[in-house]
């Protein structure tokens, strides 16, 4: 087990190195660059731009820049944003908090609702409930989040005035209730799609289990329906869900760009887009590394958990 984890660790390290190299190269080769936003100012001469580039170390050879960045990274210095001069980790940390609140809430909602719907749909296959939920899931999966977000704002904020039209909190308030009121709409919009995803997966997984021989055996043994449901059916159907959850971890922390934009939520998705737009290389690289690490951790954790809960799988 330890050997397996260690092996995966070294693999991951190599992968991270490759990701960072490709990311750095592609970023640097993209047209524009961090100074292009200033190039349009009258009076901003090419000479002045070159001087700033030199001061920022932008016109050194690419490999030199890369190894400079890498050597700082391994010592824990992720650099500073070109835009506001703040340390990259501070910036990511601030946005991660906003994203965690939003994505955490919507994921808890989506997983609990989605798995429940999935189980009930599978057990009551071809019932009115199953058909209704299938149709609902198809609709939810087809609605563009952007549109749904705006519709939600139109009805619940503009027409009914129940919830704010966006933002994470009211500046100057910041009470728990205030946070919750701001959270409802974006979390609902995000959860809608996720409920659909989780319910479809869970339905399939449950159906796979329900028709297995051991369920029939359990019934034949005279086990109670509740015990069969929770211990044998749900327990086994959740195994593939763990893998799904592992795959969702980076998405969870990577933020939801569209929802964040519609609800002006200062999360990771918008940070990534803004940083890309301004060619803020240190922040983009920081985000790239963070998400790469999360993908690797998510996958590893999912594999380990599946191995721990499913006796049929052994890690070598």
């Amino acid at each position, binding site marked *: 087990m330890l050997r397996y984890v260690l092996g995966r660790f070294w693999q991951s390290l190599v992968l991270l190195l490759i990701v960072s190299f490709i990311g750095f190269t592609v970023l640097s080769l993209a047209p524009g660059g961090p100074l292009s936003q*200033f190039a349009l100012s009258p009076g901003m001469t090419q000479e002045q731009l070159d001087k*700033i580039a030199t001061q*920022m170390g932008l016109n050194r050879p690419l490999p030199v820049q890369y190894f400079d960045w890498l050597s700082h990274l391994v010592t824990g210095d992720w650099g500073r944003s070109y835009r506001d*001069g703040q340390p990259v980790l501070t910036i990511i940390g601030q946005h991660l908090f906003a994203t965690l609140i939003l994505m955490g809430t919507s994921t808890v909602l989506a997983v609990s609702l989605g798995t429940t719907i999935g189980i009930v749909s599978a057990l009551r296959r071809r019932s009115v409930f199953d058909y209704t939920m299938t149709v609902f899931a198809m609709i939810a999966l087809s609605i563009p989040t952007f549109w749904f977000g705006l519709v939600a704002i139109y009805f619940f904020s503009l027409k009914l005035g129940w919830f704010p*039209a*966006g933002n994470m909190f009211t*500046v*100057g308030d910041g009470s728990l209730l205030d946070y919750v009121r701001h959270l409802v709409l974006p979390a609902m919009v995000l959860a809608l799609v996720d409920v659909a995803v989780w319910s479809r997966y869970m339905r399939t997984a449950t159906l796979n289990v329900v028709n297995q021989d051991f369920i029939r055996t359990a019934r034949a043994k005279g086990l109670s329906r509740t015990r069969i449901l929770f211990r044998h059916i749900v327990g086994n159907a959740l195994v593939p869900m763990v893998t799904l959850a592992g795959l969702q971890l980076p998405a969870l922390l990577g933020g939801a760009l569209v929802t964040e934009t519609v609800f002006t939520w200062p999360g990771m998705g918008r940070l990534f887009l803004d940083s890309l737009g301004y060619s803020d290389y240190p922040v983009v690289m920081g985000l790239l590394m963070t998400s790469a690490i999360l993908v690797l951790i998510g996958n590893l954790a999912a594999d380990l958990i599946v191995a721990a809960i499913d006796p049929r799988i052994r890690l070598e």
Partner: protein
Amino acid sequence: MTDTKTSEPGFNPGRRSALMMMGAAGATSLVLPSMFGRDAAFAANAKADGKLVLAFSQEPTNFNPFMPHIEVDEGMYYALYDTLFDFDPAGNFFPVLAAEVPTVANGGISADGLSWKIKLKEGVKWHDGKPLTAEDVKFSLELPLDPNLRVMRTTGYKLLKDITVTSPTELTWTMTKPFAPMSAVLASTWIIPKHAFEGVADKNTAPFNNAPIGTGPFKWKERMAGDHIELEANADYHMDGPFFKTLIVKYIPDLNVMYTQFKSGDVDVVGLQWITPDHYAEAKDLPGKTVEIAGTGTFESFGLNMMRPQFQDLAVRQALYAAIDKTSIIDALYYGIPRPTETYMPQQSAYYNDALPKHEFNIAKANKLLDDAGWKKGTDGIREKDGVKLSFTNSTTAGNHLREQVQQFLQQSFKDIGVEMKISNLPPAVMWGEYWMKSQFDTVIVGLNVLMGADPDTSDYFMSTASPARGGAGQNNFCYQSAEVDALLKKGGETFVPEDRKAIYRKIQEVIRNDLPFLPMFQYAVCKGRKTSVTGPTPNVNNRIDSWNIRDWKI
């Protein structure tokens, strides 16, 4: 980034005209009392309560005004800092930190323009309570030449020498050559405190840069990156105002969302990039909101690369211009909001020439012009003369749907006069990089602001020597050459009699209108919105950001 290529408030080396503007400022102080400071004690009595939310679609991130920044950052500078003096909407100067605007008449500037004397108001305090002194002004004026600081620009500052503090509220300097735009430079020089940089090894990462201290109407409170900045009223402000306690500058990147939050009441004033034209019809009837169209300093044009053989013949340029159906473009695509124009000069400017020949959309006339000039249609229907085909590419920012529609529309119109226009659009970073700066295009559709503040000088854009593609330095990317305009620009920079200057710049507009190095389409206008209860926001074509007079805003 703005899609139109508005110039950030930058400084054109060729502006030599502001000295005379200074003369006008003295007179204006009589008619604009609210803009001028009263005693600090008086200001402290100002009623400062409540909160105002001002939304921008770009995020302010650079708070040191001397470091590289974009337009939206200046929105913060006006709240946090003060300049010595500033431009009002009529293009006149009014004093801010200076006790009076220096002019030749009041002895602040010597007759030859070389010796300057600035007197500061008494009793102005920094947000941390320390007094503002002439040392701070000296520090600020010298900062752009600090070799270790990443600075935005050095224009103007590098001509200053012997900056001498003669008393805590007075300083003098001499200039290495007369440079009238210096006053316009100073109108965009926000004064920052010397003491905030004492003992700081690297000014690029000084704590000040993320926790600014100014003398402005609002003090820094906190910033939530990617979301908002909170400022609070400076009770000791040296001018009238501020009139509310908390200013929230909210970053809302999506314009639809910004408008929705304006409708819902979450946003009090819609700032930079404003309400999109397609929402105007609805917005102007919203209860409790005031929505107004305001002209900007940016004009949209069909720019020609004057080095291309196709555009050497004036008849071709005139024919192309006659084939542009401006009215349809403005009404059908831009919701009738911008105003057609014949020049680069904003119609609000005192230098605007209103007597230029009016454009007329006339395909028959365009065809006749080309026929008369000997451009004959070939077998493919494209006109040709002396081996030069009337065929060219047109480029603009890829993804700008309005401009893409304009292009398709023009393509059709030009086809009707035997001219082939191919569309070749590029992503912004490529389009406005070397492709534009080194004139690698045939034609472009571009939104340009060629003025700095109220100054009419445009040497940087129209002087023959200002074309990088011809080896010059500047932004004459149309590669326009006119000995007459060159001479007029030079003369305008050395003329100090207001009426004479007006005549010169009106003449320049006339020559350029006749030469047509670019085909002027319209002057941009934007749709500004605020809660009706908010008073104070005033369009000012001479300052590029909404909060230029935030000290006067009331909720």
